[in-house]
C-alpha cells in the first residue's frame, strides 16, 4: 500500500505542467551523490590532500641520515609553503648542498634563510654552501612559492651523502 502511494507520488503529471519524473529523479540522485562528493572533498581537505595536513607534510631522510628534508608534498599554485633542510657534516666547516631536478621549475624561492655563504648554478640546479655549527649541523629554511602545475620530482643532495628524492604536486 505504502509502496503504491510512493510510486503514485513519483508518477509524471501532465497538468498543470508536463513533467518528466524519470529525469527529475536523476537530478535528485545527482544532488545526493554530489553531496557525498562535497563531504569527501571536505574530509580530503582536512587530511591535507590539498596541502598542509597529515597526508601532505613529509619528513624524509637520506639513507645515511645526513640530509633531512621536511616539506609539503602537495602545494597550491600561488601559495607559499616552507621547506626545512638539515644537513650533518664536519663541525664548523662549509657544507655543500645541491638542489636539483624540477624543484626550481615548479617553484620560485621566496626566501632562503640563513643566507648561504656562496651559491652557484650547476648543470642540474643550484649549489649552496652552508656553514655548519659546532655539532656539524646546518639548517636551511626555504619558502617556496608554487608557480607551476602538476608533478615535480627533485633531488636534494650533498657530496659524499645519499640524496633525498622529493615528489611534489602542485594544484591549480
Amino acid at each position, binding site marked *: 500500500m505504502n509502496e503504491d502511494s*510512493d510510486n503514485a*507520488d*513519483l508518477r509524471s*503529471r501532465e497538468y*498543470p*505542467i508536463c*513533467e*518528466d519524473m524519470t*529525469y*527529475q*529523479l536523476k*537530478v*535528485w540522485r*545527482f*544532488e545526493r551523490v*554530489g*553531496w557525498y*562528493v*562535497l563531504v569527501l572533498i571536505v574530509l580530503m581537505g582536512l587530511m591535507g590532500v590539498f596541502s598542509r595536513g597529515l597526508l601532505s607534510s613529509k619528513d624524509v631522510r637520506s639513507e645515511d641520515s645526513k640530509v633531512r628534508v621536511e616539506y609539503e608534498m602537495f602545494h597550491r599554485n*600561488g601559495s607559499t609553503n616552507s621547506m626545512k633542510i638539515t644537513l650533518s657534516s664536519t663541525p664548523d666547516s662549509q657544507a655543500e648542498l645541491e638542489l636539483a631536478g624540477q624543484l626550481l621549475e615548479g617553484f620560485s624561492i621566496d626566501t632562503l634563510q640563513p643566507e648561504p655563504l656562496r651559491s652557484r648554478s650547476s648543470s642540474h640546479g643550484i649549489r649552496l654552501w652552508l656553514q655548519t655549527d659546532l655539532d656539524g649541523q646546518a639548517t636551511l629554511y626555504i619558502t617556496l612559492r608554487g608557480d607551476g602545475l602538476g608533478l615535480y620530482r627533485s633531488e636534494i643532495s650533498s657530496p659524499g651523502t645519499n640524496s633525498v628524492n622529493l615528489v611534489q604536486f602542485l594544484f*591549480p
Partner: protein
Amino acid sequence: MDSVLRAGAMYLALMVLFKIAGRRSLAELTTFDFVLLMMIGEATQQALLGDDFSLTNSMIVIVTLIAIDVGLSLLKQRSGWVSRLIDGEPTIIVENGKLLHQRLRHARLVEADVMEAARSSQGIEKLEEIKFAIIERNGKISIIARED
C-alpha cells in the same frame, strides 16, 4: 590566457556546485544565506584575479564571464536538452490539497516550506486550500489556490 581559463573554470565549477546544492538552496534568501553568498564571492574573487589586479585582467575576467553566460543562454534557446540540463524542470509537490511526500523528501522540503509560500503569496491558511504547489526552475514555490 590564464585569466580566461580561470574565469571559465570558475564559472563551470560554481555551476556544478550550485546544481549539487539544488534549486531551493539559495532561492529564498535568508540573512545568513546572503552572508554565505558574500563569503563565496570573496573566496571566488581571489581565484579569479590571482595576483594581477590590473584593469585589463579584471576586464578580461568580466568579459569572459558575461560571454559564457550569454553563450549559454543562446544555447538554451536553441536546444531544449541544454535548457533542461542547466535550468531543470518545475516539479509539482502538492496536488489537490495533498502533499506528494516522496517528492518533498527528494527535494529536501517540509510541509512548513510549502505553507510559508502559500501564506506569503496567496494568504492561504490550510493545505486543503491549495490546488497545486510547484517548485519552479528558480527554486521558488508557486501556489495555485482552489477556486471554491
